[in-house]
């Protein structure tokens, strides 16, 4: 019996080393193994033989841990453990593709910059088309890494081609508001267009949509880190070049745009290949900032409501509030993607609900102020875009608050909450697309 116990212990250690299998799972599997051994010994086998047969019946450990990884992708945030054979199916982690496409994006933005004469001149088409010089390369990176076939390549390219045509064929007025709105919304539209190759064409899968949300958050973290490092580097370079009399601004004009564009692809590659690093960081960041934002939102909601300031939001404050609401939503979404779905409601879920409800109250006040403004001063492109954004946010937040409350009182599953958000993602994409495509002609490109 001695030796069987040590064999079981050994087996247990081995199973536990798979990243997607946690302690409870190992307990469960061990219990199963012991049952099987007991049964087999009763049937006449020696414990040693029983152990061998039971292990064999349990199945190949690589396949098993892959199954666990598939089910608990949130636990390791990716197919990290998808065994050795899967690795060979994807020949490289894509560093070559990442490098080539980052370089291509860097060159593309540089060509555009020279054509625009930036920063001496600032033609509006440069700002409007900015994301079109970068994000197609990101889409191409994913199309390459996910090994899409020709049909999917074409489908992935379609939104970019359409966007390029629409954005550049519209005859905007000089100092056009709609053009500014297009410049703001086009990156959002194209980011959703990147989702298509990211998901390998399976945009209907809610799990893959959640993966994309997670990717977006992690990409953002990496991008900010790279930007900070780049900023330090630029600052020091400027300090060193100063005495030599070289015009630092000219150097920056070359380095900055290319660096910023290349970093978009490099950050994506880092998310893909260095998953393990950020997967530890992301939940910590959301855990830190969700409570802080919740407190801040709750305070401002109360203050605005009590002082009656809510009725008199001015234009600048309204845009700050809109930005705030978007950030809160991003935080909620990202926190959701980092959560283990099967666990019971905890204090973080309550804090998140506080954040959502405060955001909802603020959003309602913003909407009230906005409708009052529109009633007084009539529609402008900016007001309509802001109104639409707030309505889109309102519906999302209301749904999220309702489902969160039900989840916290044990009347629904976390799964439903996730579903609500992943099902809602296309609404954001459609709204941003509507601002880019429909709004300018409606307002005669003013």
């Amino acid at each position, binding site marked *: 019996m001695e030796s069987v116990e040590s064999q079981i212990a050994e087996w247990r250690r081995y199973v536990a080393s798979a990243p997607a299998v946690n302690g409870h799972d190992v307990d469960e599997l061990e*219990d*199963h193994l*012991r*049952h099987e051994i007991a049964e087999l010994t009763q049937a006449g086998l020696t414990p040693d033989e029983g152990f061998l047969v039971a292990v064999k019946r349990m199945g190949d450990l690589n396949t098993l841990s892959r199954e666990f990884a598939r089910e608990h992708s949130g636990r390791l945030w990716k197919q990290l453990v998808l065994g050795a054979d899967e690795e060979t199916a994807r020949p490289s982690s894509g560093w070559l593709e990442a490098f080539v496409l980052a370089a291509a994006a860097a060159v593309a933005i540089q060509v555009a910059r020279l054509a625009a004469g930036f920063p001496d001149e600032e033609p509006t088409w440069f700002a409007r088309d900015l994301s079109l010089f970068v994000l197609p390369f990101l889409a191409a990176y994913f199309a390459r890494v996910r090994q899409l076939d020709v049909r999917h390549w074409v489908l992935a390219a379609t939104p970019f081609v359409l966007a390029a045509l629409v954005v550049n064929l519209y005859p905007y007025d000089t100092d056009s508001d709609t053009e500014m709105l297009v410049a703001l919304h086009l990156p959002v539209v194209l980011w959703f267009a990147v989702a298509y190759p990211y998901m390998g064409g399976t945009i209907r899968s809610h799990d893959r949509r959640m993966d994309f949300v997670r990717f977006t958050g992690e990409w953002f973290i990496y991008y900010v880190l790279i930007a900070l490092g780049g900023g330090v580097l630029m600052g020091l370079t400027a300090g060193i070049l100063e005495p030599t009399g070289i015009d630092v601004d000219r150097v920056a004009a070359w380095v900055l745009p290319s660096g910023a564009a290349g970093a978009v692809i490099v950050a994506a590659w880092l998310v893909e290949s260095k998953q393990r690093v950020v997967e530890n960081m992301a939940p910590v960041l959301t855990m830190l900032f969700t409570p802080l934002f919740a407190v801040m939102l709750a305070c401002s909601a109360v203050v605005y409501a009590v002082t009656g300031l809510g009725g008199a939001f001015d234009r600048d404050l309204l845009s700050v509030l809109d930005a705030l609401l978007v950030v809160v939503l991003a935080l909620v979404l990202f926190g959701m993607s980092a959560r283990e*779905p099967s666990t019971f409601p905890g204090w973080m879920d309550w804090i998140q609900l506080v954040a959502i409800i405060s955001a909802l109250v603020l959003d309602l006040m913003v909407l009230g102020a906005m409708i009052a403004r529109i009633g007084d001063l009539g529609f402008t492109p900016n007001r309509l875009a802001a109104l639409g954004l707030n309505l889109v946010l309102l519906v999302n937040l209301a749904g999220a608050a309702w489902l969160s409350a039900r989840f916290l009182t044990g009347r629904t599953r976390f*799964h439903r909450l996730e579903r609500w958000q992943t099902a809602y993602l296309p609404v954001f994409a459609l709204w941003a697309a509507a601002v880019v495509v429909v709004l300018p002609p409606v307002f005669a490109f003013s």
Partner: protein
Amino acid sequence: MRIDKDLVAASATPLVLAILADGENYGYAILKKVRALSGGELEWTDGMLYPLLHRLRRLGYVTTEWRTPPEARRRQYYMITDDGRAALADQQRQWVAVTRALSEVWPGSEGPLAAVGEA
């Protein structure tokens, strides 16, 4: 007879749900029931049961509870929920439709249809 892997995988969910609809149970006992029900013809890799059970839990079809029965190790029990029963009924309808279609094209094999139809 060896049943095709895809077919085994497809039948796993309704089978497990149906077993749990009879009453709560834990992993090893569920597997033994599967073996007994299929007369050993459905070849399951034991370990695969658990990722499947966890998926059913995530979808809200089952709930779980850790319990320590007397003179045994602590183990996780699985209980079917109302959502799970609804999913099971839905699966049943699908399988009946499939078997009906198959027995239409395979004359003389009314056996399985009758069996499933009664379920």
